[in-house]
């Protein structure tokens, strides 16, 4: 049996009916970069794709590993595939009219500006604390017109209720409990990581809708 997917017009109409035409226009015309495609980044990407964000820039140097599958938006048959390719494939199945740009590279101080220059909003979704700090500093110093939504503290089995979004300054938001370190907690639980990712995705959409934290 041949299954036809909805047309682009039908797709957009359904989103606009759900979100409101004004907000949907803002989502559809936006470009969001997601730096790191692990437990945070892959879940952020799925939420933003479903919401109808027009373009995602997906950046990660890694391949899908069996140890990722408990919390990341990949499938068993994608082990060994570049995360950029696997996630793009999964997102096209979810949201067929999204535009996706992929970069299978490690983000460094040298290449970040070029990789991120077309993004309106940047989601920092690394796992390494030093890499998180590097990207946050770099965006604020070198790309002051862009928003950065960073993450810190979502490891372990702690309460879901302590994961928050904090607007540190005009362009910097931090999501997480800012305490729970994977090196101390020893674990990353899908639901808690997804809560933090959902904070980052929701903050992205709120900024696009011009609704800001005070």
């Amino acid at each position: 049996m041949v299954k036809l997917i909805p047309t682009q017009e039908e797709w957009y109409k359904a989103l606009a009916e759900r979100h409101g035409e004004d907000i949907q226009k803002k989502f559809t015309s936006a470009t969001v970069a997601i730096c790191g495609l692990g437990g945070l980044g892959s879940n952020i990407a799925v939420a933003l794709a479903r919401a109808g964000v027009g373009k995602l820039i997906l950046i990660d140097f890694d391949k899908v590993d069996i140890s990722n599958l408990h919390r990341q938006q990949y499938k068993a048959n994608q082990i060994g595939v570049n995360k950029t390719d696997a996630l793009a494939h999964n997102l096209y199945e979810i949201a067929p009219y999204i535009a996706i740009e992929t970069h299978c590279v490690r983000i460094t101080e040298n290449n970040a500006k070029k990789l991120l220059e077309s993004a309106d909003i940047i989601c920092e979704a690394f796992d390494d604390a030093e890499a998180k700090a590097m990207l946050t500093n770099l965006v604020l110093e070198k790309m002051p017109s862009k928003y950065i939504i960073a993450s810190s503290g979502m490891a372990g089995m702690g309460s879901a209720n302590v994961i928050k979004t904090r607007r540190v300054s005009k362009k910097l938001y931090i999501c997480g409990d800012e305490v729970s370190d994977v090196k101390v907690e020893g674990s990353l639980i899908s639901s808690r990581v997804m809560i933090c990712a959902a904070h980052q995705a929701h903050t992205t959409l709120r900024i696009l809708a011009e609704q800001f934290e005070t």
Partner: protein
Amino acid sequence: MVKINGEKLNIAGKTVAEYLATTNYDPKRIAVERNGDIVPKTQYDETLLQDGDSVEVVSFVGGG
């Protein structure tokens, strides 16, 4: 007084680097904002904290 993450401290006249040296922050895992603007890491040594400044130190932990 200088407000650091909401706490008032009597450290006006110190540099950002001098303040950080009195804390447990790992300089590689932080971002420092002073009055809403990022303090570049290369300027921690020369940025003087002044009376009335509001500083936010964001400290990153691992996991994602």
